[in-house]
């Protein structure tokens, strides 16, 4: 089982700043203004490849690993006969190989209302969509089977992982669909995803994870229990990472509509403490269940953030382990740009 993120391993030491000014570089924020998601993801991947100094698309032949021999039975496919062994032993044996297929990857996107928040040019949701599209496009180019699941308080759209023509288009179409849900409940959607995604693979959870850490734990543990490798990409707005409202305002919860009045001078430190604690809890939860948590800021160039994610991910040599609960996860924070 090899997780083929090797194209990035060679350029992991490169920083995004080192590639700025390259002829192939395009303004990352200008890319985000491109409405067509496929073009946007393509540009990002191309930029990512150029930034990483990698060739654009590598074709991997299907590797075959020997599993066992067994006696030939009538009805077996004659093509599976090990003729060499027959030459040596004059007996018919069927040579069985371990099924080596391309990797399944589930991109799970949180489309709750809290993801619509954004103080910059783009919202967290738009950032997450672009990120999901970019990953799907990138993995598709590697001939991996990429699927998509979106959720808010429940699973909304499901595109099963396939490697076929039009798969990317279907994924992008789902991503383009306007969200209809409101709240975020991570546990239940992740439970459904675990039920749907029976074959092991990589689950990339793109969410702001604005939910109690314990809820995240149960969901992630379920996935990990299924043998999935879990990569959590947490998207945050800069205004969420540090309190920026300075005047009297009624704060309205975008998901529940609840309104509270806060004193900006009093709440800033309190918010920062709670946010940091929650982040720490998330980190602890991810480490506990063997998931990898990356935190990305929505105002950071997606290409750079994605490169950092892949770099950190590959550097830590993430391996799929069935007993992921026993191994520690990795955490990285996309500082952006």
């Amino acid at each position, binding site marked *: 089982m090899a997780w083929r993120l090797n194209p990035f391993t060679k350029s992991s030491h490169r920083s995004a700043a080192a590639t700025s000014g390259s002829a192939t570089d395009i303004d990352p924020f200008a890319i985000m203004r491109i409405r067509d998601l496929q073009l946007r993801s393509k540009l990002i991947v191309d930029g990512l490849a150029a930034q990483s100094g990698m060739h654009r698309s590598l074709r991997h032949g299907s590797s075959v690993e020997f599993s066992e021999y067994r006696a030939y039975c009538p009805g077996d496919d004659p093509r599976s006969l090990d003729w060499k062994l027959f030459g040596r032993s004059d007996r018919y044996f069927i040579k069985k190989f371990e099924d080596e297929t391309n990797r399944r990857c589930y991109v799970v996107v949180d489309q709750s209302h809290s993801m619509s*928040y954004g103080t910059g040019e783009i919202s967290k949701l738009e950032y997450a969509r672009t990120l999901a599209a970019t990953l799907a496009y990138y993995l598709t180019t590697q001939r991996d089977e990429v699927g998509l699941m979106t959720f808010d308080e429940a699973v909304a759209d499901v595109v099963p992982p396939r490697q076929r023509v039009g798969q990317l288009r279907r994924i992008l179409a789902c991503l383009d669909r306007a969200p209809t849900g409101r709240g975020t409940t991570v546990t239940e959607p992740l439970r459904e995803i675990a039920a749907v995604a029976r074959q092991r693979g990589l689950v990339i959870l793109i969410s702001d994870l604005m939910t109690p850490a314990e809820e995240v734990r149960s969901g992630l543990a379920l996935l990990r229990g299924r043998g999935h490798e879990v990569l959590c990409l947490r998207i945050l707005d800069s205004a969420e990472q540090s309190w920026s409202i300075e005047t009297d305002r*009624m*704060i*309205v919860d975008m*998901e529940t509509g609840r309104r*509270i*009045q806060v004193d900006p001078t009093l709440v800033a430190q309190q918010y920062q403490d709670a946010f940091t604690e929650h982040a720490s809890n998330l980190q602890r939860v991810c480490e506990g269940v063997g998931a990898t948590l990356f935190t990305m800021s929505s105002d950071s160039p997606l290409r750079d953030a994605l490169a950092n994610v892949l770099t950190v991910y590959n550097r830590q040599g993430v391996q799929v382990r069935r007993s992921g609960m026993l191994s520690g996860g990795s955490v990285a924070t996309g500082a952006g740009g």
Partner: protein
Amino acid sequence: MSFLTPLYLLGALAIAGPIVFHLIRRPTRQNVPFSTLMFLTPSRPREVRRGKIDDWPLLLLRCLAFLMLAFAFARPFLRDENQLMTSLGRDVVIAMDQSASMRRESLWPRAIQTAVEVLEDLGPEDRVSIMFFDTDTRWWMSEDGVDRGSIASMRSDAIAKLSSMTPTWLATDIASALMDAAGRLASSGDDDSARSDDELQRLIVLISDAQEGADVDALRSFAWPDRVRVDVKTIAAEDDDNASLRVMPMTDESDRRLSLRVHRHGGDSATKMNVGWASDASGAPQTPPVSMQVPPRQVRTVVLPLLDSDASNSKLSRLSLRGDAHAFDNDVYFVPPKREVKRLLLVGPAPSESEDARNELGFYLERMPLDRSSQTMQFVRVDDLSDEALDPSQTPLVVLGRPSDVDEASRLREYLLDGGTVLVVMTDGKVTPRDQDPGVDWTSMLGTLFSDDTSLHINVAGKRVREAMRLATVDFREPLFASMAEPAFADFSRIQFWSHQPITDVEPPWQVAAMLEDRGAAMVHRDVGDGVVWLLASGWQPAESQLALSTKFIPMMHHWFWDRCSSGQSIDHIVGHPLPAGWSVESVVDRPGIHEINADGTTLSVAFNLDPSESETSVMSVDRFEQLGIPVGQLESTVKIADRQRQLRRRELENRQGLWQWLILGVLSLLGIEMWLAGRRSAQAEPSPAGNVVQ
């Protein structure tokens, strides 16, 4: 500076609003969406800050805007005392109804009180006159005689005069009173061109009970002057239940009964009423009264025995009605009538026994129904006039059935000159044979009658025509035929004349009333002195014509007999009505009762009664005056007039200055500055953008 609507200045208190709002820093109500509240806990609202104004320039702008707005609504203007001074005088006529109906209850004191109130409402610039009226109008004070500087003394004099007056016994003639007052008011203001055109400057204050019986119909044809209004102050009685008593004319002197009519003019349920005789002195009933139930607005007739004048020992008789609310018209005075006898003298021979009496002139005259209510016709037939007294007052008509000799003609001429009527019926001599002078004929008789004239202007000497003829022409302009001028009665074609004496060559002063088919005159007449001579070409008996059998004959004879005869001496009269010619009284009769009248040398006892219209006491609606084209207004007190005029002047002054427009302009300018400043403050207050939602 003054204000037209100063109450709006209270709106300036609205500046408390901005001040309070600037003192209070309200918790923000601006919503900011945020991704999650899981890291936030509600902070308690801040303490309201007091004692410190938040933004002085904005506060001043807002307060100033409110103040200017309040000032603008208060309509300020710069006072100009010269222009505010008003001086308006009114011409007011107080028309006091003094008729008999004002004797009811306390109407007259209330009317005086109303008049006093009107006087107190008048100002020193007003000119007032008081007019008392019933059937006549009496002016107590002319406007020219009022001292404008001593309104107080004028009031006291007027009140004293009012207090001294009492209602009369006369009827109400509101129309005459109003026309008189309106005429005076209209003429009084013609030379006062400086007066303004205020429509209430000339006012008639009519203080009356406005009874239905009051005469107002004459106003219909009266051209009401402009700018004269009438303020009708109705003094209504609390109880309008009134009944009146009237004596019905007696038709038969021998009948010892008297018919009385009880008319109830108001009320709401049937009431028992009593009618009986009362002596004039004590009022005690001489006979038991007759009781009856009279429903509202109904008439009942009752019959009382006529008192014997000897038994009552007096000529005075009074009938009393009891049972209604008002007693002023309950007494009716009655004098038993005395009939007058008028003679119809037929000059001609008495019919012989052998002849048919129906072919004789007197047969029809004797049976002629010519009696009137107070006069009786007495038929007298004579063949010789020498012994008869020919007085036109006693014998209004002499029918001449034969030609007269000179002596008779001379007496008839004197009779004619005194005003008598001679009807010469040129009958056939065979019918009325008389051994007369052969030289005497119709022509000579007429020559004697008109001896002062050189010519007869008529020819009656022709041979008698014995042919059947009809009337060809009837002059309905003649008073003789005027009563039959209607098409229904104008058919004379059925009357045939079998024989007639031709009347030709008719010239003025003779006048032809009717002509026969042969163009000869059938009826002509000529005035002689105060009298008149009629010539009839034929007799009316059936032997000569069908005239006596015609329905036209009685009206014609009625005209000849009564036309120049007085209607008789009435023994019933209405108080206030003009006395008939020839009557005279020692003192003016101004109240009901039995009064002695000197009538052409004889003394009569005449019953003077109240005008029946005074008993109709239902209150007339004020709308009635408006229907008659009289503008109705209200008399305003001097204070109200002054206030109204002052307010009007102030409004004119304010409209001319128009300060409020500038104030509104200032308010708009201030609001513009305030909006700009507030927007700027708001922009400064929010330097950092709050979180927004990017969909």
